[in-house]
């Protein structure tokens, strides 16, 4: 039992370090993989998602075999809430930005500063 847990922690640690260095390398040397900026962006977001899964499985011990299903259930509903907050905010704010002309923005800023 102790050995199993120790192996889990060491594996998780090594994977998380590797994922961090990979994401860093993709940003600092994109020419190495012939990546354009969209590819780099996709790569680091995928690596962050993998990193998140690594931490959840190896450090927090979540997953299908988890001891308490309630932990996982409340975790999943939190993720849904977060997606609503983040995606919703970005969606609304981008539309507001898009629908405001530069003149309107300048007028608004002048009104604000009196």
């Amino acid at each position, binding site marked *: 039992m*102790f050995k199993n*847990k*120790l192996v889990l*922690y*060491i594996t*998780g*640690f090594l994977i*998380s*370090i590797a994922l*961090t260095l990979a*994401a*860093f390398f993709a*940003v*600092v040397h*994109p020419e190495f993989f012939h990546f354009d*900026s969209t590819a*780099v*962006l996709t790569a*680091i*977001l995928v*690596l*962050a998602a993998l*990193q*998140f899964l690594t*931490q*959840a499985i190896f*450090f*927090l011990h979540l997953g299908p075999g988890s001891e*308490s299903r*309630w*932990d996982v259930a*409340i*975790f999943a509903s*939190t993720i849904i*809430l*977060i997606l609503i*907050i*983040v995606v919703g*905010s*970005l969606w609304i*704010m*981008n539309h507001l930005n898009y629908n405001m002309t530069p003149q309107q923005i300048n007028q608004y800023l002048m009104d604000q500063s009196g």
Partner: protein
Amino acid sequence: MNEQKSEDKSIFGFWVYLMTDLILFAALFAAFATLRNSNFGGPTASQLLDVNNALAETLILLTSSFTCGLALLAAERNNRGWTIGWLGATFALGGAFLTLELAEFSKFLAQGASWQTSGFLSSFFTLVGTHGLHISIGLLWIVVALFQIGFRGLSPFVVSKLKRFALFWHFLDIVWIFIFTIVYLMSHV
């Protein structure tokens, strides 16, 4: 049996707290994502943020998460010496992380890039500062835990407390991964 049940309950309660904390961070991330380009004539994210420093902070925090897990394993085996040793290592690494972060903040302030400069900097300081505040509370928690282990030994109460601390620390690590990706790396793409 009863003790086991109440420990499960207290860990579940703490887990619920962590999830609400995660929602707080999500709101701060959403604010940062909408304001990241609103630099109001001040420095932009790519001019200001240093990825090398952020990489060092990330590696330090990942290692501290690992040593924190090892401390919990030692505590479950009732090994007092190693528990104290790994907790001490976690404290040192957490302190190093906080030092790097505060050094970065004071560098920005010296350049005149404060939270009052632009929407980008307000949201940057709020998001990264809230995480730093959590880390500081975690460091305080380690000190209290070390005293309790010193005076009371590894009683079931103390071990249960360490389990909650480990959850808290791993959670902060996860939040930092997203700060590293969304705040630091994405500014340099």
